[in-house]
């Protein structure tokens, strides 16, 4: 699977109230690539991620992983290939202990309890949260919750990681740890974010969204120099370039 392209072809979606969220978004992500999706609030980033994970069906267009189209029929394959880290870790964590929560995904993929426990231990080790294994998730700090939520996804062994606002609500130290972690991953990474400094550190390519369309696609260094584009899309140059 790891050598498969992830491809969005003419994705369109309107919410039941008629609001257009996506209006013909198309792009391709190569295996191992680290791509950021940026844009103002309501530009369609989260909708796009949900669709790529097969959690929302497009009104038109399709998502392809290699040769397979993401549909309810290919759901199992999609779950194995794509890991989705949600914006609010509290939405994701629900088992009584961290270890059980991280093992929840692997167990659903049909591995044995022992194997799931060992996958969970490895994933917790990767994110540096082994010491939290027996704690109930609702008593953790924001940064710890994010780390555990990420472990819960990578324990499933996905090839592609989708991350929705991974640094939102983190303190600077937790944000730095997360960035180091994301840099070390070899997964294909697609990150929806407002944190353009994170993009400079983690991504080699950036897609800019506006009104449900991809309006720019290129290297972060080049795209973030285009000030009229940034202003139009409710963005600002990365903080480290300012002042």
């Amino acid at each position, binding site marked *: 699977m790891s050598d498969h392209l992830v491809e969005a072809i003419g994705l369109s979606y309107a919410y039941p109230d008629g609001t257009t969220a996506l209006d013909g978004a198309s792009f391709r992500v190569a295996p191992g690539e680290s791509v950021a999706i940026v844009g103002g609030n309501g530009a369609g980033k989260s909708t796009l991620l949900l669709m790529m994970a097969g959690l929302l069906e497009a009104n038109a267009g399709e998502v392809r992983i290699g040769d397979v189209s993401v549909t309810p029929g290919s759901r199992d394959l999609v779950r194995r290939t794509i*890991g989705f880290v949600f914006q609010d870790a509290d*939405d994701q964590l*629900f*088992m009584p202990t961290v270890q*059980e929560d991280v093992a929840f995904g692997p167990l659903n993929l049909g591995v044995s309890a022992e194997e799931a426990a060992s996958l969970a231990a490895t994933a917790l080790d990767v994110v540096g949260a082994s010491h939290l294994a027996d704690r109930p998730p609702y008593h953790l700090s924001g940064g710890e919750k994010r780390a555990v939520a990420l472990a819960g996804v990578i324990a499933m062994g996905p090839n592609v990681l989708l991350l929705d606002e991974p640094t939102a609500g983190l303190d600077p130290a937790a944000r730095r740890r997360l960035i180091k972690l994301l840099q070390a991953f070899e997964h294909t990474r697609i990150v929806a974010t407002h944190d353009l400094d994170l993009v400079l550190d983690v991504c080699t390519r950036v897609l800019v969204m506006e009104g449900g369309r991809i309006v720019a696609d290129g290297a972060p260094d080049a795209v973030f120099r285009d000030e009229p584009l940034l202003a139009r899309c409710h963005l600002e140059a990365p903080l480290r370039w300012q002042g």
Partner: protein
Amino acid sequence: MSRLESALADLRLADTLASRDTALSRLDPRAKIVTTIAFLFAVVSYERHTVVALLPFLLYPVALASMGEVPWRWLARKLALAAPFAVLMGIANPVLDRTPMEVSQGVTMAGGWISFGSILLRFALTVTAALAVVAGTGMHALCAGLAALGTPRVFTAQLLFLWRYTFVLGGEGARMATAREARGGRGSPTLAVYGSLAGHLLLRAFERAERIYRAMLARGFDGEIRSVRTLRWSPRDTVFVAGWVAFFIAARAVYLPLVLGRLLTGFGG
């Protein structure tokens, strides 16, 4: 902390208590479920005017609470919360049933008062036992136990969702209450404000519930909640079930109540 928040924290204590290593939490959830069901059947099997014969059954909830190191104040608070239901169920009895009954030598009471007392006692016994089991097991382990005993998955999954969404709905409600207070809202809201708050709460809870469900789907949820914690039946569990069931049978089969009754009437005069 708002009242709602502290009520939620108090409820969450059930899970926190269960995550500790106690004599009760070490038992297999199935042992606790089976024994507690036997206890419930024994307690409700008595004739409706029974009071004294039920007293030996107090031993079970007391033993559960001390094995699980469940704080008595927590149990009492939860019991008080549910008490109005029991009172409502039995309050008509003293009015409807005025037949005099002999309580002990020379003392008579209306049968209705005795059956009312019996209802309250049974309520206290059964609810305390159930609360102590939840606090000494945890909702997830309890549902795993129920599922292993053959309860349909639909039911156990629903129970877990109910538990999870109680905190979701409560958390949203607490945040809204705080926001209202922060902008100067005091006392009870007017009906119009209350309606608007309730509507927003519902919509927000819906959205949140949908995100949670999607997060579960993304990790392969297919209707069954699996856990790495496997159930293990040990000799300790057999002793627990056999010991208590033997006690319930003995308490039910005349012998214990009679002794206890004699003891009490002996003290009484």
